């Protein structure tokens, strides 16, 4: 962990602990994310997965909180580091993994790849490979919801480094000006590719920027699943009530390299070890058992369930056919006649 203080951190409040079903759902999502992420990295390193895969290790608690709060009516725009977000929104791991392998059963018929997952049926609207570019798009979705009469929230997730690009500031300004029903979720993992946050931002407390836009903001310990759940729930409910935008800075730490196969020896050992001590899924597991919120037997059953789910998804993806070469020319436009005349 870096030296920064979590001055505005909300901590776990025993009075706001949700029911066992929600806690188990959160744990299942965390474990599934961790296992699928680790397996993807292994497959990429082994050369069996020819994809630029961006691990989400360290962000599992934030994703689990999103999964516990959001309904399919709420819409999400995510970024390329999206495995946990997609699972949280209800996208099946089978279709996610098939897309990573470039197969026809992927969310985009293998034509989008890991940076372009979507499943509009569950409100997972878009993922973008350009840092920060999803924020203005989410503003448009929130505006659509506002024009429709409101009642749902639009959530956009992005890393800390996305707060450097102009699109971020333009989107924050639009959202505050038009009081849109949107929640900006900054998954602050403290690294912009290979650059630590303190080397690219004059203030590492990103939530402070929201006050420049007169926007409500919170800063929370993103390793603390229940604290994160609480602030996300509050912000999403504000959006659903049409009470305007919220900026949430969820402070986590990236437990791996920038991409699945990249060296990350540049990450300070002591920082990484300290962060690994708080690895979200094992930490949550301990919390649930120590506080008697569920039993060891239930946890072991959930672990086995997650392992089977991940194993099945990888097998499904590996067995899924590649897209037919004819797919190259479909979906460029609604009608592919002219496209075929050009080639």
């Amino acid at each position, binding site marked *: 962990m870096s030296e920064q203080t979590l001055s505005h951190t909300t901590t776990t409040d025993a009075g706001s602990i949700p029911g066992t079903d929600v806690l188990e759902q959160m744990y299942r999502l965390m474990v599934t994310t961790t296992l699928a992420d680790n397996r993807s990295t292994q497959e990429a390193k082994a050369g069996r997965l020819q994809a630029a895969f961006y691990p989400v290790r360290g962000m599992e608690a934030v994703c689990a909180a999103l999964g516990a709060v959001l309904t399919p009516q709420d*819409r999400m725009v995510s970024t390329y580091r999206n495995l946990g977000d997609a699972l949280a929104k209800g996208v099946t791991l089978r279709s996610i993994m098939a897309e990573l392998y470039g197969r026809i059963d992927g969310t985009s018929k293998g*034509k989008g790849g890991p940076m372009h997952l979507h499943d509009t049926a569950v409100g997972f609207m878009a993922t973008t490979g350009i840092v920060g570019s999803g924020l203005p*798009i*989410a503003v448009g979705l929130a505006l659509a919801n506002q*024009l429709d009469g409101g009642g749902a929230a639009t959530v956009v997730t992005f890393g800390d480094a996305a707060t450097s690009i*102009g699109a971020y500031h*333009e989107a924050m300004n*639009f959202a505050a000006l038009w009081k849109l029903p949107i929640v900006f979720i900054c998954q602050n993992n403290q690294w912009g590719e290979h650059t630590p946050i303190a080397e690219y931002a004059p203030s590492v407390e990103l939530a402070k920027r929201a006050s420049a836009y007169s926007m409500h903001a919170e800063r929370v310990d993103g390793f603390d699943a229940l604290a994160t759940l609480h602030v996300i729930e509050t912000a999403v409910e504000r959006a659903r009530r049409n009470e305007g935008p919220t900026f949430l800075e969820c402070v986590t730490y990236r437990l791996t390299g920038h991409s699945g196969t990249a060296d990350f020896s540049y990450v300070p050992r002591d920082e990484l070890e300290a962060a690994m001590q708080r690895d979200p899924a094992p930490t949550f597991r301990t919390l649930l058992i120590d506080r008697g919120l569920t039993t060891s037997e239930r946890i072991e059953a959930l672990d086995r369930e997650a392992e089977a789910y991940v194993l099945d998804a990888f097998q499904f993806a590996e067995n899924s056919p590649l897209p037919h070469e004819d797919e190259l020319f479909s*979906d460029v436009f*609604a009608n592919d006649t002219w496209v075929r005349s050009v080639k």
Partner: protein
Amino acid sequence: MTTTERSTDTAVTSAAAMNSALDVAMAADDKIILLGEDIAEPTGGVFKVSKGLSTKYGVERVRSTPIAEQAIVGTAVGLALGGYRAVAEIMFFDFIAVCMDQVVNHAAKFRYMTGGATPTPITVRTVVGSSRFGAQHAQSLEAWFMHTPGINVVMPSSPADAKGLLAACLESEDPCLYIEHISLAYSKKEEVPTGHYSIPLGQANVLRPGRDVTLITYGPQVPVVEQAAEELAAKGIEAEVIDLRTLVPLDFDTVLSSVERTRRAVIVHEATQFCGPGAEISSHIHEELFNELIAPVQRVGSDYSPVPFSSALSGYPTVAKIVHSVEELM
């Protein structure tokens, strides 16, 4: 082409014709939302294309925005994902460089990157063609977008086409870049259908029949090329004039069937000639009709410089340059 009643009123400008297209579409479809700088009343857009529309449809649907092109187009893309049809006004074509990411990486590719699941049928309207403000308010950048699969590129040359093609963009299932030319917005007037009127994208218009040479052009060069055709006629050369109207999809059928007859072709545009739209069209004609051609296809585009401010300098195509180019072919 669908046509309702013909206007019996006086002729209108392209600006008024575009206003009519937006008005008719907004009345028929309450999912159409306009976004842009200064587009609501009292300004009604700096070129007055949205004049009166915020009064009629409200500032919820005709939304003046901050000066923030990335957010204007990004919001349009998000509105499209949310089931709306957004028309984003980018005041000058040059400013599209500011929001290039949202236009080419997002709007143009969302359908493809999601295997067809999330098309983003937005219309980006923009204005080009005056050197009165210097080189950052004057560039013809259509080739950038022709080079990006997934976005239609449209450039009308007359008030009736301005209305019919804008209506087609608003009805399109795909994103459209609709480029207006400042020299055509107010000067030329003609009768335009008052009700719903749309011209299918990808249909070129043969403005003048001719047997000796095909002149292929679009947008602001249409009147220049028509004048050149008059001068050529006086010299006994009958030029066929084709207004492409849309650059994507490009009506190669009309172009090739004309050149197959005339066996000579010149492509004229205001975009820089080097790597401009004419290069692609010329290459296509050579590949398809090499044995039919009497002479190599010629191009008359703008010279390779930024658009100069001083009226003493101009790299634009002229009637004289076009006539000279044709005479070299004969």
